[in-house]
């Protein structure tokens, strides 16, 4: 279609011409013009998706850094609220355009382009979720956050539509529970992040909303997936756009989460919070054990498994030190010991190195 429109590549064509006379009308050349435009269109789309993925990675990292501050003595709620705002922002400004790019495509075709960003994003969201609710975020919940109604898409992409879109985004909380106006609103209610103060109007009915959501996610997550599939297969394809989150990508993101937990655990000791390492260690062990049971299913997974083991050991050693030396040193001094001797091999001298490798 746009084959002849791509004059930018005229140089190539001239070169071809000078080498041997190209008969522009030959069926072979005609066919190749078609292939050219098709390949170009696909490569362009791929590049656009890579760019979006890169932006998602950068912004997710910022969220993670922000959440690391929970380890310090800053107001935890404040930090979490800020993080949520940023996560919502990533969804709106990055994942929505990405969903539009992927609309009508085979998402797996572009998986390699957006997988890095997606994994980093999952890491950020699961980190947030853990700090907020002390449990692992579910795939269903992550997936629901990345589903957008086409209406939102139109509002967001049109210039000056941002404010209008914001008002629609806050509607699900504000509108009466019994009567959701559209499919997307129902989904928003179940979002794992919506439980906290995403918008001011929502805070009043937040607790009940949250608990019902959580319970539901546990009970019928598999049913929901099936239902969503059905919905996707039939009518709602025209109403929603989505960035699919394959289970493997989700798990790879979770594997990265453990690195962040390790960092936070070590940092929180220096900040005087002696419970977090124990708690995080237990949680990491659950993840570690689960990953062990999967065996060598995917190359990427087993690569991350190794890092996971290192992180877990560091936290375990830190917990050990806490236990042993905790009896002889007063708490406030123990914190000093940890922050001063961060080069002590026992509980992870090279924390920073590992952290750098994670980023």
């Amino acid at each position: 279609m746009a084959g002849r429109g791509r004059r930018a590549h005229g140089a190539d064509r001239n070169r071809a011409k000078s080498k041997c006379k190209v008969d522009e009308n030959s069926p072979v050349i005609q066919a190749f013009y078609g292939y050219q435009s098709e390949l170009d269109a696909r490569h362009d789309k791929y590049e656009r998706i890579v760019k979006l993925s890169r932006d998602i990675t950068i912004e997710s990292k910022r969220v993670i850094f922000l959440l690391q501050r929970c380890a310090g003595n800053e107001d935890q709620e404040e930090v979490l609220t800020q993080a949520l705002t940023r996560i919502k922002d990533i969804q709106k400004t990055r994942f929505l355009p990405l969903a539009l790019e992927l609309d009508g495509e085979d998402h797996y075709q572009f998986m390699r382009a957006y997988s890095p960003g997606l994994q980093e994003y999952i890491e950020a969201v699961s980190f947030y979720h853990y700090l907020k609710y002390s449990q692992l975020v579910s795939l269903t919940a992550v997936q629901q956050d990345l589903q957008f109604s086409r209406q939102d898409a139109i509002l967001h992409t049109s210039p000056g539509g941002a404010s209008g879109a914001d008002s629609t985004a806050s509607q699900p909380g504000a509108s009466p529970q019994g009567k959701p106006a559209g499919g997307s609103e129902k989904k928003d209610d179940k979002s794992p992040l919506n439980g906290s103060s995403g918008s001011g109007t929502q805070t009043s009915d937040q607790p009940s909303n949250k608990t019902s959501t959580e319970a539901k996610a546990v009970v019928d997550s598999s049913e929901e997936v099936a239902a969503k599939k059905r919905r996707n297969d039939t009518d709602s394809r025209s109403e929603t756009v989505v960035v699919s989150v394959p289970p493997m990508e989700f798990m790879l993101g979770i594997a990265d989460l453990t690195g962040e937990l390790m960092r936070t655990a070590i940092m929180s000791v220096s900040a005087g919070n002696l419970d977090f390492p124990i708690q995080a260690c237990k949680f990491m062990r659950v993840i570690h054990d689960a990953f062990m049971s999967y065996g060598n299913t995917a190359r990427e997974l087993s690569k991350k498994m190794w890092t996971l083991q290192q992180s877990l050991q560091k936290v375990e050693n830190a917990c050990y030190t806490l236990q042993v030396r905790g009896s002889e040193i007063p708490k406030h001094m123990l914190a000093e010991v940890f922050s001063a001797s961060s080069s002590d091999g026992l509980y992870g001298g090279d924390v920073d190195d590992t952290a750098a490798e994670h980023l």
Partner: protein
Amino acid sequence: METAAVFSDFQEHLDADHELKEEIRNAVRELEQTAREIQTSMQAMHQQAGNEHLLKICENVEPLFSKVREQFAVLAEKIPASQYYRFNDIWRFVIQRLAYLAALKVYLMHERLAERQETADMLGVKVRREDGFHMDLDDFLMGLLTMASELSRFAVNAVVAGDPGRPVRISKFLGELDSGFRLLNLKNDMLRKRFDSLKYSVQKVESVVYDLTIRRLVPASSGDNEPKG
């Protein structure tokens, strides 16, 4: 509680995934077998000159191509909707080889470049992703490049078999194919690597033509006037 559920869900996913991949691999293995049979039969093209001989070869492999169509139908059934690219590494190689064999067959019969649609029809697959199990454009182009190197070999062997006019026509054909590929803006991928070796095929055939020409071994009628098919 929830955490455990997340992991058991994933375990289920892995199990189902494993099973599906195994089924796909089995289907692909069948296709590979047929592709090998076709390839073996078509190698006879190097042994003897003459259009009748080539047409006979093409006739012989026709039943094998219908077998391919059946086998692709079986494979296509196993792929969940919009997950072609999740698994396509498994059959990428065989579909490239079959695209090559189909394009070669078209060339031997008609001495022209196979169209994408007609190649897809021969294999029983679609051209557009939206229409179902399809042949990726890259795979089709890879098939054409493999055909090009096979034809450069054919040019040499045709001379030995007593058909000195053949290299001239192959040279012209490859020249056109080459200028076609030059139109594409290739990324630094497999296709690009394969394309880079196309010039060696072209060169080889050109040198055969050169050898024949300076010895006046090229029949006067070779080239455009040669009856096609």
